């Protein structure tokens, strides 16, 4: 079976070179804003180290913290549900809505619900879902998934957004002014917030000690939804737990500086008890996380706080776009999370990297992302999921490197071909030739040069 892989999807994205440059520069600009914010804090490295150690403690006592959180949340009047996988999660949401006779819901950003494909499931069952984060609303209108976990429509030009708003929200054709379009969305979604009885939000952090959870937004959409609805459903990946309330100080300092270079999101909302006459439901979701916890080489990926800084800095992500990762979470972090869920389907993702290590350097919780990418490659090849071409090339390479005769012969042949018949490598069959010319071949190998010059 052939599934479309990252390289093929990146090819589609790379057809429009001007757009690739724009995408690349926009994300790099965000990376620079991150640097500017980070450099103002002399304690940055200490913060990262502390955050990483807190998350290590969480992962090593996760079962206990989950029970502690559940108990304290229940004491606060929050109803707690458990979902082993995406299907169970979606069914819990559907049952909650059906139980109240609700067929329209407003949702703020939750990558977990993207991972679970909640919208499709609800729509299939006659529930209308409206995404309220502006970027998410835009990709929802375009019938696309988000291409970035923090900046869902970073791949879209304002003219395309103007066209979507013209088609669906009745704005004048050709108007692509961000101020005007945002105002239109504000009016459109205010009506939605005021008329929905149910709101779903994600969870950025859940505190075991207090049973509260924190949701961070810049737009205020999570709060508008939650405070105007009679039922607030919060979907939470179980790794979102932190032990103590004071730990929030560490993570809220790291999250937005890493994500966008802001010192904090506009709103960091702490939900502890439901408003009188309303309900808060928290759904704790596993969906492969307990399995990842059992993989010593990869469990650190569960420390992720979803800031997106690894994407903004990644030379491959910036030039291939989020959709080329064909997974809810794109970029380097997506490439180490996805193979846990389906190693065959996502076998290509750990190879979509130069292993430059920039992702690990910016990660606020010090996940060894590039090392995990390298380790996944080995697991994937060993399990036989690597692409056929890659397997053949690696076999050839290992034969060549194992035999000095073959190695020298291969080098000579390569230099000969590149010198006298460059068309043999400068063609479309050679992936290294895409978007670049092959280098001038050297006249001789280092071995040949050394033999000649050793005695001189």
């Amino acid at each position: 079976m052939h599934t479309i892989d990252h390289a093929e999807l990146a090819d589609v994205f790379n057809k429009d070179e001007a757009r690739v440059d724009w995408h690349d520069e926009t994300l790099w600009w965000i990376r620079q804003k991150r640097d500017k914010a980070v450099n103002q804090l002399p304690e940055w490295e200490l913060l990262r180290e502390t955050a990483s150690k807190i998350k290590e403690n969480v992962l090593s006592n996760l079962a206990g913290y989950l029970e502690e959180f559940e108990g304290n949340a229940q004491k606060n009047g929050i109803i707690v549900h458990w979902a082993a996988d995406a299907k169970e999660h979606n069914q819990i949401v559907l049952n909650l809505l059906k139980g109240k006779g609700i067929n329209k819901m407003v949702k703020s950003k939750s990558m977990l619900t993207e991972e679970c494909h909640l919208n499709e499931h609800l729509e299939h069952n006659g529930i209308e879902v409206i995404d309220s984060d502006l970027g998410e609303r835009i990709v929802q209108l375009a019938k696309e998934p988000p291409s970035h976990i923090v900046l869902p429509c970073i791949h879209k030009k304002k003219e395309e957004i103007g066209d979507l708003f013209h088609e669906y929200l009745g704005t004048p054709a050709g108007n692509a002014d961000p101020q005007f379009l945002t105002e239109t969305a504000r009016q459109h979604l205010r009506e939605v917030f005021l008329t929905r009885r149910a709101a779903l939000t994600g969870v950025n952090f859940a505190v075991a000690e207090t049973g509260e959870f924190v949701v961070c937004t810049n737009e205020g959409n999570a709060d508008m939804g939650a405070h105007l609805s009679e039922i607030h459903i919060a979907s939470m990946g179980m790794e979102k737990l932190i032990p103590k309330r004071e730990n929030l100080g560490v993570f809220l300092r790291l999250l937005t500086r890493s994500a966008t270079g802001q010192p904090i999101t506009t709103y960091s909302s702490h939900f502890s008890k439901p408003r009188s006459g309303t309900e808060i439901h928290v759904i704790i979701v596993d969906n492969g996380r307990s399995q990842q916890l059992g993989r010593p080489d990869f469990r650190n990926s569960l420390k992720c706080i979803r800031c997106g800084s690894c994407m903004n800095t990644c030379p491959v992500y910036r030039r291939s776009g989020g959709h080329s990762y064909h997974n809810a979470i794109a970029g380097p972090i997506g490439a180490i999370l996805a193979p846990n869920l389906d190693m065959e389907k996502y076998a290509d993702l750990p190879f979509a990297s130069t292993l430059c290590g920039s992702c690990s350097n910016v990660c606020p919780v010090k996940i060894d992302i590039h090392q995990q990418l390298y380790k996944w490659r080995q697991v994937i090849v060993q399990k036989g999921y690597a692409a056929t071409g890659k397997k053949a090339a690696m076999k050839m390479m290992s034969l060549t490197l194992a035999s000095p005769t073959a190695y020298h012969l291969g080098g000579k042949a390569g230099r000969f071909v590149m010198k006298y018949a460059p068309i043999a490598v400068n063609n479309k069959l050679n992936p290294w030739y895409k978007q670049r010319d092959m280098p001038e071949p050297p006249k001789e190998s280092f071995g040949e040069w050394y033999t000649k010059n050793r005695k001189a």
Partner: protein
Amino acid sequence: MSTARERILNAVRANQPASTPLPEIIIPASEIDLSTKFTETLNNIGGKVIAVNNYADILNYLEEATATRLLNISSIPELQQLRTLDHIPRMPHSLQDTELAIIKAKFGVAENGAVWITEDLLDQRVLPFICQHLMVVLDASSIVANMHQAYEKIGMESYGYGAFIAGPSKTADIEQSLVLGAHGSRSMTIFLINA
């Protein structure tokens, strides 16, 4: 058949690594002038700070700025005379036409321009979000340097809902162009009372 809860907890218990200690948070705060840093940070994120000496100054300022606006003032006895809504609304939706809300904050955070608000300071949780413009009264002496000190101050206080609010609602989802006034308040003004 076991429940999802049991299956998940069993899987986690089987797979979680040997326990590592929870680190203490020992992160020193920089020596800074707190009011200056708070003002500077809030200005950078689209907010506005007005330094005042007392509530009389605030009343004077508001007399000029708010003559015709629909006002909601939560929990500030000194400003109740400005309130145009004479009852505490039962449904949050009835606040939808609030042009301006004035609320009190418990304290401010210099490093990020945020103020800490808990629901006992609000008629309804939705108030600081649904209003078109938000004004916050803050004692300069309550400002702390960073988020560690902020949580030290909050301690184990019990609240149904609490939030850090830092500046007006904003988005940059369209080509990274910053627009103020996404879904929440379009502006945020802080009256900083220097006691």
